[in-house]
């Protein structure tokens, strides 16, 4: 610690006496009102604050070596990199693209909806298969054995069967005997 003459009382008195004798004659006692026991209690008051101030640990994380020395260079390098590298353009869907997507979805929904709505509700796929498996001669045999004469009359009355059709002949006989001519000349309606 540096050594010096801190207090210079004797020289100060001599200096004062020579330069300002009236001032030198005055009482130099400190004046001013101070609360009672102020200085006695000051030590404890300040010590309490010192203990609080010194007991709170100052957390200081250890920084990498030369962190602040190299920080500026790192920042400049990053800034230069950002300036030269173009930012990628992300293509957002345009209105046209969105319209196409919406149209496709709507068309799909319509197709599915239409298939459910417009397909023949009466079509029974299992029944179709059963009918297809039956031979035509069996149809004719069934009609000849189950349709009575009166039924035939009702069929004619309701224009379901024509008069000319009363004399039923098998389709095979027609085709066999007369071929295509009969098919063209007669009106065979079932």
């Amino acid at each position, binding site marked *: 610690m540096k*050594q010096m003459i801190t207090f210079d009382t004797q020289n100060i008195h001599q200096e004062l006496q020579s330069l300002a004798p*009236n001032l030198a004659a005055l009482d130099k006692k*400190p004046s*001013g009102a*101070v*609360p009672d026991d102020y200085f006695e209690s000051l030590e404890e008051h300040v*010590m309490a604050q010192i203990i609080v101030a010194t007991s709170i640990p100052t957390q200081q994380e250890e920084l990498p070596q030369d962190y602040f020395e190299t920080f500026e260079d790192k920042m400049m390098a990053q800034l230069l990199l950002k300036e030269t590298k173009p930012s990628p353009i992300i293509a957002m869907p345009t209105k046209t693209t969105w319209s196409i997507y919406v149209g496709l979805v709507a068309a799909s929904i319509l197709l599915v909806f239409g298939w459910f709505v417009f397909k023949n509700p009466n079509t029974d796929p299992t029944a179709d298969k059963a009918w297809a498996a039956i031979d035509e001669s069996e149809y004719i045999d069934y009609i000849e054995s189950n349709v009575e004469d009166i039924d035939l009359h009702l069929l004619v009355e309701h224009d379901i069967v024509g008069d000319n059709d009363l004399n039923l002949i098998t389709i095979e006989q027609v085709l066999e005997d007369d071929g295509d001519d009969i098919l063209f000349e007669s009106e065979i309606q079932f």
Partner: protein
Amino acid sequence: MTKVDDKQILAWILSDDHKNMGYRCLISQYKEKLYWHIRRMVGNHDDADDVLQNTFLKVVKNIQQFQQNATLLTWIYRISTNEAITFIQTKNKRNHHVVVDQAHHLVAHESPEAGEVLHKLDVAIQKLPEKQKLVFNLRYYDELSYEAIAEITETSVGALKASYHHALKKIESSLIATV
């Protein structure tokens, strides 16, 4: 309390075992000197009390950085002076004036005439420029050497001598006019 050498105080503070004892010794040894030094700058007890406590806290916080190329006393005086100046500047910004005790000399002294003279002395000191007032107070009231004042105010010894002598002449003229 018997005066303890600054070296010893510093050694205690820097040790782990006697740190608190060093703090207590520091406070005890310098509290009155610093208090009156601060009070002459800020002008009243309450402000002086605030600045004094802040000074000790700042000394404790920065004691590890004390370079020892100055004496402990001048280092503490410098901190207290800066704290007082900062306080005055802050208060001036808010209130535009510093509250100064007006009649303390009349309370402290027995004869009204002595009190009146000392009051005039106070008025004359308050009229000095701030730097000159600081130098005057450190030399006249605290009886510090020019070298110590030079360390506190960071001013050359020659400039300090000139400033102090000039202040003495002004105050002497005021006292003569009073008498």
